[in-house]
């Protein structure tokens, strides 16, 4: 092994370090900067080669923003995102443009994410034309290969997005994301807008593509069952922060953070026997505003196990057992 490849294998593909994405709130006549929405607040994690990282959390917890920030589709306030050792957060616009082929995104709303005035073929071909010097016939061939790969009929190449069903549109989105052979695909709730029967097809397609193309996924979802099915490791987000991060089986078997426990207790069981014995942890209160999070632990006002320290100090994300990280004072020995 050459030193470079060796280094690459040992290094994670993506390394996110204390990422912050704040959206400024402007108010008043002169639109003065009066505060920040802390959509993503001090988030760190990594994604290895060929790994699927699940990112779960309720609506508005910042998981989508985190996904977009990794591809720098939203302005990054602070922190670093190392992709193959290169920092995404501080790359120049042109440098960023050069890096984009290696990292792609599949969007939540398949209809809205496709330009209504472009045919399927031109949607898929556009990144190829932009980044690769292929001839006309080669480009067409490549587009057709991609359509085959995602299970779309080649004859549909000259149709417009609105002529397809939701599942087919998402396949177009996937083909588009694959067009440049990326290493990382951020899947932003790719199945949330689809029928349950189609969800399984799309997720299986993603899993197949991952094994045949050695892709890494950041799989953002609020569907805990689906994340359990596809992810290798899972990070749980609450109010812009990661509260727990562990291997999938470990996390689902021993949820440590009270929020994760509550979240997992809400997943219905398929087996009626288990379902009857399932004990739901019902959280009281509302999610605080990300523009004004509580002092101490973000979760303190809703946590069933909160004690005085939780209202004072902010817990750090640290290892509580091998490869299992949680941000909770319950696991502090001191």
């Amino acid at each position, binding site marked *: 092994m050459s030193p470079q490849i060796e280094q690459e294998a040992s290094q994670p593909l993506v390394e996110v370090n204390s990422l912050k994405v704040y959206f400024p709130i402007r108010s008043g006549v002169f*639109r003065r900067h009066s505060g920040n929405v802390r959509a993503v607040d001090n988030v760190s994690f990594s994604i290895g080669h060929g790994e699927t990282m699940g990112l779960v959390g309720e609506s508005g917890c910042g998981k989508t923003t985190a996904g*977009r920030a990794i*591809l720098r*589709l939203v302005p990054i306030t602070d922190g670093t995102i190392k992709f193959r050792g290169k920092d995404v957060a501080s790359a120049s*616009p042109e440098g960023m*443009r*050069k*890096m*984009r*082929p290696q990292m*792609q*995104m599949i*969007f939540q*709303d398949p209809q*809205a*994410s*496709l*330009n*209504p*005035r472009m045919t399927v073929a031109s949607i898929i071909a*556009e*990144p190829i034309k*932009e*980044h690769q010097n292929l001839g006309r016939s080669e480009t067409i061939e490549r587009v057709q290969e991609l359509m085959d790969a995602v299970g779309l009929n080649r004859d549909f190449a000259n149709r*417009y997005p*609105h002529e397809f069903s939701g599942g087919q549109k998402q396949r177009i*989105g996937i083909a*588009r994301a694959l067009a*440049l052979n990326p290493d990382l695909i951020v899947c932003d709730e790719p199945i949330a807008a689809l029928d349950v029967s189609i969800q399984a097809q799309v997720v299986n397609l993603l899993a197949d593509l991952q094994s045949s193309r050695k892709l890494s996924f950041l799989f953002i979802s609020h569907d805990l069952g689906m994340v359990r099915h596809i992810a290798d490791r899972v990070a749980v987000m609450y109010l812009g922060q990661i509260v727990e991060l562990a291997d999938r089986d470990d996390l689902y078997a021993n949820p440590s953070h009270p929020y994760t426990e509550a979240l997992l207790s809400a997943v219905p069981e398929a087996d009626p026997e288990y379902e009857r014995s399932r004990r739901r942890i019902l959280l009281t209160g509302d999610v605080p505003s990300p523009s004004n999070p509580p002092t101490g632990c973000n979760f303190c006002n809703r946590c069933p196990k909160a004690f005085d320290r939780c209202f004072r100090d902010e817990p750090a994300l640290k290892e509580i057992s091998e490869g299992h990280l949680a941000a909770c004072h319950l696991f502090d020995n001191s």
Partner: protein
Amino acid sequence: MFDYTIRRTLLAIPTLLFISLILFLLLDLAPGDPTAQLPLTIPPEVKEKIRESLGLGQPLVIRYLLWLQQFFVNEPLHYLTEITGWDLSGDRQRVLSWQSRSPVVDIILQRLPQTLWVVGMSYVVGVLIALPIGIISAYRQYSWFDQIGTFVSMIGFSVPTFFTGVLLIVVFSVELGWFPSIYDTTHVVDDWSSFLFQVKQMIMPTMVLALYNAAQISRFMRASMLDNLNQDFVRTARSKGLRESTVVLVHVLRNSMIPVVTVIALGVPTVFGGAIITEQVFKVNGLGQLLITAIQANDIPMVQSLTFIFAILIVAFNLIADVLYGVLDPRIRYD
């Protein structure tokens, strides 16, 4: 799409006939007498004779049907005669102006070039100014450029042309003496210096109207761009690693143009309608001025024909706008 266009064109015929009837009735019901401005020394019985010679003695239905025949049969036949040289029209009666006793359509054709040059040019200039302003305003929303653009649009939209026109005349003709305050219709362009004079005399009326047009269209453009800038497919385009100019000009602009093109097409009939007030201010004897003098003189055939031609243009450009919408937006299908 073709069937749809044909169907709409056929549907336009009863619509236009209905409009012509309404126009005719409105003009008939309106107070006013074409002989009112004749000298008082003319005896009343002579005045009555004049009224009868204008056809006003006939019942309303007969007068309407006569106008229909003159406008839809006699006028086209007369034109075919002129073009082909065959005698098709014979001594068929054309629509005559009560003011000048010459055919209405001939007068309109004499006036059309002035209107098209001044008002048409102002529309073209207005669109050309409005599109970039709208695009940049939306792309840099709430920037200084946008704030100034919004302010200027508000002025252009709300300050009437009879004010801006006179203001420009006071500043540029009276004080600075750069441009003539009166548009000379008889001016013939045959060399460089006469061309320069033509440009000079066109600048003020054109800019007054262009400001007004640009104010409206730039607002539409801005709103439409803003609608599309936050769409998911724009984020997709960025994530493809396209250049920012491609993202904005191809993905955003093309989708934003759909409603704007419709608005522009719908505005074209107003060009032919002339800008009555601006033409008055700058003494451009175009269609707007023709209409207003015809109204003042109770010249009913002229008013009827002019307003009806405007109606035809409005119906036609509505159809054109709808068809353009179908061409530009693949989601729209007309079956």
